[in-house]
């Protein structure tokens, strides 16, 4: 029986330094925009009709990027 694998449960499946670094490297303006977009996406990610979310994203970009 194999014993060479690291214990799966010992590694946290959370955001790694790499993921954090990617997000932190974004400008404040872009971070804000990404947060807003994901907030909108949360409830509609499974839906096939996308026109409403497109309008919302478009409006967020216009509001945040002057």
């Amino acid at each position, binding site marked *: 029986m194999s014993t060479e694998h690291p214990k799966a449960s010992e590694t946290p499946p*959370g955001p790694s330094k790499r993921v954090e670094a990617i997000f932190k490297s*974004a400008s404040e303006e872009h971070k804000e925009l990404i947060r807003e977009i994901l907030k909108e996406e949360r409830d509609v990610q499974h839906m096939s009709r996308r026109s409403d979310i497109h309008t919302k994203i478009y409006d967020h970009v216009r509001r945040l990027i002057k």
Partner: protein
Amino acid sequence: MILERLVIRNFRQFKGEQEIIFSDNKERNVTLIHAENGFGKTTLLNAILWVLYGYKGLTPDFEGKTHLIHNGMAHSYRKKPNELEAMVHLTFSHDGARYMLSRAINLAEQEVDPKKDRMSLEILRDGQTFNQDRPQHRIQAIIPDGISKFLFFNGERIDELGLDKNRGEVTSAIHQMLGLNLLKRATEDLNHANVRGKFRKELADNTSDEKRDLITRQEELEIKQMSADSNLSTAREEIQAIDDEIKTLEAKLAANKETHELQAKRAQLQRQKEEFVAQADEVNKRLAKLIAEDGYTLFTTELVAKGKAIMEDLRSKNQIPAPVIDTFLQQLLDEGTCICERCLDPGSPEYEAVKKKLSDAPNQDFNNAVSALDHAIGILEGVAEATGENLKQLTRERAELTQRIRTIEGELEDIHQKVGRKDDEKVKELEESRRAKALKRDELTSRCGSLKKEIEIISEGISKLQSQIRKMEDQEDKAAQAQRRVDAVEECGRIVEELLQAETEELRPLLNNEISEHFSKIIDRDYRAELSEDFNLRIRSWVGSEDDERMEQDVALSTGQRQVKLLVFIASLLALAKRRSEVPTILKGTAGSEYPLVTDAPFGNISVFREGISRWVPNLAPQVTILLTPSQYDGDVEKALRETGRVAKRYYLAYHGPKNTLRQGANAHLTVEGKEYQQYFEADEEFTEIKEI
């Protein structure tokens, strides 16, 4: 999502109102439902699917989907169809709230359109109850139907999920359960014509002619890309449809006594071929990666030898490392004494001689560079050697797989010829039709390959244009603002895509470890699970002795092992999703979640592994409900489940039916934990009762 209570009323054989309370205890998370085949296990599973997703959620093996109301009662109420309904109610907890979901259909509605039902959802949060206006929308947000087949399934059919053609569904389930779908959808939406395209149009309307041209070219390429993407997905759908048609034809050939054996052999060979092709595909990808990353080292042998010779030559002449460096000579001049004890007075011939040497002397950086060069030559030599070895091994693996595929193709061709020679006209017709469809499928598969290549080339072109457009500055305020918005959309799209890629790349090995750890415990062999970059799950093991050359190869799994592989994969995915839900994420909504596992007959084909599955799966998934027959709940399973200490609730299905309707092999009594329960009752009318043990 943790299931709490299921109430069913007049749903198929479940006459009247009956309920199941699921165990929601984290340590004792298993609910067992014992039932003979034909007593209603599949119906119970489908009751859960129906309340969640309606008609379209019912499983393909659930027969008579258009008649959900208890047959006997439907007959009695045929003159007052509005007064009889089938109803399923499910209470579950999710994200700190309690959800009460109901779906119902009455006899009159069922006769008009069995797909149209009534659904309601109430949410109890912080002591207040809210009625959800769009219940299906909310359910889909909590538990998208894409992952339902990984959570509520028939264990005997789970093998199908492992097929190559279902890889997309596996990837999608991983994304959804681990919270990555949010990032995927956000990327798609940011890149959509309604968002990015609209901002580009605003930019083009306000910018220079030159930039406008580039934007137009970019848009043209994107249209081409979309069209190629759409063609690719159509071709894939056509392949799927042809596959289904071939399956139907093959089922007919398998049912024919003339061709039964040949078709069985063909099915076995096809499965083997599919596995070998997937393995060859993986080997090719590894080869491409190896050549792209380290292939150049194979052409450096001469260069390395030459570099080594030069270094040796300089070393033998004592020129490297430099015996005397500038700081040492400067120190002599500063101190005014040479190492030979002569005075180094400024202006003296000795002073001038040392000063001249100082101007040509190398510094410490030179010696550092010599060490770095030595090191680099060593590394290059090592990488070249390892690359050569890996290349040999992969080439050998590929050659072996190609040989195996060819042998199987030869055998398949033999079978085709033998079937085609049968005297039965019907058989000949079926075989010809099968052959024509297989040819069409091959043609489409090859078309998919060229479309993928085309998409790759277009993507490169788009990236180049994008970078050219960004470099061109705008003078007008409006144009500059439009450019900033285009940049923001493109940049955010890129960041979100990068986050998705990083999360996926980092979660994949975690899932690998999780699966490997549990798979090897159940199978009791030195196997390693490997989820490839495109989420193809393979099981690998080392072959060859220590003295001999050891190499890792894909393991050809038996049907039972494949079933174990998928069960462990699903349970491990649920375990990882649960752990991920417990750690903070950088972006809200990208965490995992808790999901229940409800499986009908999970021990169907896995014979010797039943004990391992019973022991480990309850440890992985947050909540497990198992529907099983008395024969599946044999000594090993019973013992293993008892030893886990995780079984909290038990039910059994009692069947009421006319005399002699008990299926052959089924017993009138059920024995659980040494106690006997009557599970068959003679009655005029057929119905099933849920009884708690």
